[in-house]
């Protein structure tokens, strides 16, 4: 009986989302206005599945996937050159910008008790080749960001939570007058909820909903400016950027209420 039911499933019943097919590579989203609402205007956002920023495929949770995107027009008005980003870095199926926390394997170097002075000793040559690889990486990243200056975040958001673009827009607004926020929060540009894929439908059908709809998720797409992972930085640059994040007044908003 189960097989009989399953064979009647079309691609859509199997979870295929036609708006996000890799052949189409573009999707209509709404502009996020200054007050954090979605405008009626639709913008065509090009996305690039081969340019993975973060891949969190999962049957559970938010299953967040982040890929490179653009509005199809570069600063000079010309179209984005397809395939250009592969010229240096070679964006392939397994090319992910960074590995998620917990995915990395153990340190490949000696693990004995060594002091920092010991660590520094004999690292000269190794450091030189590391620096070269790092420079090449930075150049490749620059090329990618130049070609796809936005990211498209696709995830299954809990509907009881505040929409991410609302909180980000508020933070961005605070940044207009607060130098500790300005430049230290991402800029959200376009977004859309695809409620027809919401888990609300099946939960309603199976009578699983409670009053708070706490278990309901919806497919949410958010487009933001493209950022770089902080671990790309080193030394003083890393130190400064880290404490800028720490000090971000958006995060410390409570301080503004107690003067």
């Amino acid at each position: 009986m189960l097989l009989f039911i399953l064979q009647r499933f079309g691609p859509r019943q199997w979870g295929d989302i036609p708006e996000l097919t890799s052949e189409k590579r573009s999707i209509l989203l709404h502009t996020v206005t200054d007050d954090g609402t979605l405008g009626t205007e639709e913008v065509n956002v090009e996305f690039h599945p081969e340019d993975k920023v973060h891949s969190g495929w999962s049957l559970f949770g938010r299953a967040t996937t982040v890929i490179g995107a653009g509005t199809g027009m570069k600063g000079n008005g010309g179209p984005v050159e397809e395939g250009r980003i592969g010229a240096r870095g070679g964006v392939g199926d397994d090319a992910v910008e960074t590995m998620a926390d917990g995915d990395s394997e153990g340190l490949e170097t000696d693990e004995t008790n060594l002091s920092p002075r010991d660590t520094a000793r004999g690292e000269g040559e190794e450091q030189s080749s590391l620096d070269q690889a790092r420079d090449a990486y930075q150049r490749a990243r620059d090329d990618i960001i130049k070609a796809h200056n936005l990211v498209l975040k696709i995830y299954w958001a809990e509907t009881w939570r505040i929409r991410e673009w609302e909180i980000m827009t508020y933070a961005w607004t605070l940044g207009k007058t607060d130098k500790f926020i300005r430049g230290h929060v991402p800029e959200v540009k376009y977004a859309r909820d695809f409620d027809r894929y919401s888990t609300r439908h099946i939960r309603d059908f199976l009578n699983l909903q409670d009053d708070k709809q706490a278990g309901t998720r919806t497919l949410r797409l958010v487009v933001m400016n493209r950022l770089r992972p902080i671990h790309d930085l080193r030394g003083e640059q890393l130190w400064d950027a880290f404490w800028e994040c720490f000090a971000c007044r958006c995060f410390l908003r409570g301080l503004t209420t107690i003067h």
Partner: protein
Amino acid sequence: MRFGSVLHVGVFCAVLRPSTNKVSSGHYRLWINGIHHGDISLNNLMYSVSPAGKAEGVLNDYDLASWDKFPTTNGDRTGTVPFMALELLRGGLEQRIPRLYRHDAESFVWVLAYLIAITIEYKGHSVKISRPPYFNPWFRDDFRFNCMLKRSLDKNYGREFRIPGYHSLYLTTVRKLITHWVELDNAFLDLKAAGSTELETDDPKGILEGLIKWIGADSQKGFAKVQTLLLEVIEAPKVM
């Protein structure tokens, strides 16, 4: 106990001092109208390059954030387990410990400790992050062991594993920062052990003041700039 430790434990004990009048909001410095990130992890700390070419830290990913302006009835726990605050880890996922500023601030410290210790290999446009095996339990489900390892991390930091040469400059500073937060955790544990059942008031300013005072008693590389920054943050006028 070092001078800095005495200072910060004193400050934090003062923060936790039971209110003499529970009805009065004067003793209850609520963190209202605040955006609470709730998920400080390595992946959520980013940077962008300003038009002037400066790398600027960006706090990313607000899908788990909460905003007092839109309270929810769901008392969920959020965060990335490897960088979760000791108190939250001790409570386990089933306990609903109120989310406080100090929890997120502590997560920042664990991220920094990890960030300074990892090594990165570059391959084309992608990177591979390798961590010392010492950190592996952070990524497992044994929260108590994770907690235990973190509480002794300052003693082992840079000794049980190597810190990459280009970050060794900050080794001692990070070690001291970990000590600071572990001693803060001890202060809270002592209060609980003494039978305090008072609901803790969230006090980001008190936490930062404690950190600033503690930094002031230290002369480690990099701390002077941090102290100046945090002082500015505390003294800046209300925005909206």
